[in-house]
């Protein structure tokens, strides 16, 4: 595989490629490289969080717990749980940035924006997150069933309030609209009938699923044209029997992994592969082996999500994910805080990441993290003092330590400036910007790297 194809493959399945990885991979065939990606992601390593000192919080219903502990102690535990969710946000980002199971983590991130959920109960949230990771490359039907049983989702979409005598439609609606079929592939009646099938689906305080028979509607339902005494699993089976479901997921996948602008022919091809057995790994292998995946029109055309942007910088100089507060601030400013989606539809992605505010922040991000917010600009030999003046006032917020700087030197400073440009910037450079960079080339690779990461082209992958 050539270098450009490799960079493309590793940006879409991960967060870029180091020169060492490129050097080791160019000799291998496409199939070998793709196999390596899946081999590396075979293992499932759940995120672990220290959950000691919570007492009975994870095995007693809230009302009983409140009575036993008193309001104040109860609220303390609740706040502690919320704080732990913020900790999980940080742990998750660190895992994305440092895990060897790169593809699995990229897929987990993808699924987290399909099965969108938000919860401030740490145990339930952690379980939910690890469920995404476990099924990320597995069978889609099993995945949907696991998600539908998770405490976080049962709460988030009010299915814990979905009872035979008064069904709550929220989960049934979003299951079809956002998780599986998309609008237009089911009717309002289907929503009502599906809601009945999920009545009584609930969870225990420890997050385990439980079907409360007395609250479950046992009567016959008519769903997507079929009649039967359906339960929740039957509804999911009937949904994935629809080809529209395979197409819906493949379209989401295509936008995320290939191109925000969809090619109908390619979607049809993927849908046919996926519909056979809903095996996610088979589908992904097919995608990364397809010739069209590597076509120039699909390379460097996707606007990076804030997480992709941050982790991409981290892969060049591993200094991004050091302080929880800082990382929270960065996520907030760019509009993507993991575990805190804006709403159940998730982040729309691509151009929706960009407005004048967020773009300027994103352009500034590499210099902010790596270089005291400074981007070298020396029109050869002139003006040196002027720009130093300009930056003098800036406070140091982020810092790069020696070890992190050494990482960059080891991996990147041996390559030529031209090579560095090819490695860091995926799309073809804008003509004027390329000329400008020529005219303002700094001495060190590090400063040049920062310049390259500060041009609009770096926003794309």
């Amino acid at each position: 595989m050539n270098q450009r194809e490799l960079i493309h493959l590793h940006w879409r399945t991960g967060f870029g490629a180091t020169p060492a990885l490129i050097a080791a991979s160019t000799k291998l065939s496409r199939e070998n490289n793709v196999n390596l990606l899946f081999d590396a992601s075979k293992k499932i390593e759940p995120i672990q969080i220290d959950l000691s000192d919570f007492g009975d919080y994870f095995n007693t219903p809230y009302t009983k717990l409140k009575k036993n502990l008193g309001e104040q102690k109860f609220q303390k535990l609740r706040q502690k749980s919320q704080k732990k969710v913020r900790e999980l946000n940080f742990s998750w980002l660190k895992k994305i940035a440092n895990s060897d199971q790169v593809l699995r983590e990229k897929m987990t991130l993808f699924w987290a924006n399909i099965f969108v959920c938000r919860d401030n109960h740490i145990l339930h949230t952690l379980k939910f997150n690890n469920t995404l990771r476990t099924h990320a490359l597995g069978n889609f039907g099993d995945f949907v069933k696991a998600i539908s049983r998770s405490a976080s989702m049962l709460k988030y979409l009010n299915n814990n309030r979905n009872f035979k005598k008064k069904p709550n439609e929220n989960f049934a609606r979003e299951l079809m609209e956002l998780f599986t079929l998309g609008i237009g592939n089911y009717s309002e009646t289907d929503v009502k009938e599906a809601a009945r099938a999920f009545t009584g689906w609930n969870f225990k305080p420890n997050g385990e699923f439980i079907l409360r028979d007395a609250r479950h509607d046992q009567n016959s339902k008519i769903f997507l044209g079929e009649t039967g005494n359906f339960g929740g699993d039957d509804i999911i089976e009937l949904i994935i029997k629809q080809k529209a479901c395979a197409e819906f997921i493949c379209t989401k996948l295509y936008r995320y992994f290939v191109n925000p602008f969809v090619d109908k022919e390619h979607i049809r091809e993927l849908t046919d592969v996926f519909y056979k057995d809903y095996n996610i790994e088979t589908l992904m292998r097919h995608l990364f082996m397809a010739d069209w995946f590597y076509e120039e029109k699909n390379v460097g055309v996707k606007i990076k999500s804030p997480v992709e942007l941050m982790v991409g910088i981290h892969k060049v100089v591993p200094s991004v994910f050091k302080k929880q507060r800082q990382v929270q601030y960065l996520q907030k400013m760019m509009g993507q805080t993991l575990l805190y989606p804006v709403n159940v539809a998730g982040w729309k992605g691509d151009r929706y990441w960009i407005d004048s505010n967020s773009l300027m922040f994103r352009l500034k991000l590499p210099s902010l993290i790596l270089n005291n917010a400074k981007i070298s600009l020396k029109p050869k030999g002139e003006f040196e003092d002027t720009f130093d003046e300009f930056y003098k006032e800036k406070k140091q917020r982020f810092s790069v330590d020696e070890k992190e700087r050494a990482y960059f030197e080891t991996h990147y400073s041996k390559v030529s400036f031209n090579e560095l440009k090819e490695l860091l910037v995926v799309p073809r450079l804008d003509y004027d910007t390329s000329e400008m960079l020529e005219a303002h080339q700094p001495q060190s690779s590090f400063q040049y790297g920062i310049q390259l990461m500060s041009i609009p082209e770096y926003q794309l992958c």
Partner: protein
Amino acid sequence: MKRRDFLIKSSMASSAVLVPSFMKAFENLDPTLLGYKKLVVIQLSGGNDGLNTIIPYRNDLYYSNRPGISIPKNKLIDIDGELGLNENLAPLKSLYDKGYVSIINNVGYPNPSRSHFRSTDIWHTASSASAYLDSGWMGRYIDQYGKKPYSGIEVDDSLSLILKGTTINGVATKDAKKMFNNAKTPFFSKVLETQTEAHLSEHNLGYLYKTMVGAKSSAKYIYETSKTTTSTQSYPNNPFAKQLKTTAEFINSKLDTKVYYVSMGGFDTHANQANRHTRLLKTYSEAMEIFVKDLEASDSFKDTLILTFSEFGRRVQQNAAGGTDHGAANNLFVIGKNLKKPGIYNDSPDLSNLDKNGDLHYTIDFRSVYATLLDQWLDASHSKVLGNSFNTLNFI
């Protein structure tokens, strides 16, 4: 070269020789295109329960459908012997008594979507329930009538669909100073100075460059124009009130922005809504009263109109969790000084004639409200912005 010489040179350069023509497009503008009137659009996100906001308290069906969450007659503020305001809307009532408020009932659209996202998209894009548009109606208005990104401002961290146009987007900012400081980084100025139009494509890269150009000139303009205006009113301490305060400062500084958009979240009250919903209304109405006072103090209220909407109302019948599920038609408020028909604009909701989901039917298409605002307030042609002709109403 000495610093002083450099400064002189660079200031000349940036104002004359080196400004590319496509950047000038944002700066040269025919002022006759723009009137001086402002529109502030506020969304109560999540689906405000209109029936517990403007309460049809003479209607027994209201009480029989909502045994657990209805507002009793002695806990509301009567307005016309038939409808009453939620008691936490007292600040709104004082505006109402001055003739500043028009309440329009039963606003919606055919085949209503009960999805937040879809229905918000429909309200933002002004599309029908079956069409999918990727630009917002306020975005298209600034495309055609404002021409500059800062013609429309969302007072928030990120920009919503409502302010995305087909050729330009509005600006999202809660803090003009921060935005300005970031945009004046020398490296970015250099990138833009050397840029020529020829290489900008319609693809994502061209989009990024264009957004960068717009961001830089807008940041400078918004900050420099608004920096001297600071509100003297004391707003409540919450994010929504803060957003309105910033909006008032922008308007009072005579910023050449035509339309503003602010959203307030939390209205998706599926469970235990009673206390939560009234608290939200309190937050809304308290901030709104100060906002109007702030505008009046600077004599800009007469030129400002405020529309408050929500993406849908909620179901007439409560659910088992002491909340309400997603509904359809809803009421909305227009707040301004010179309303043609202050008070209740049209008939109360008909609770005896519901659709098959048990939701209210609409009697006024929301695009008629937009059409009225565009034609009669913003001096625009509504069919150009909305893509179709709609009946206009009679509230301004």
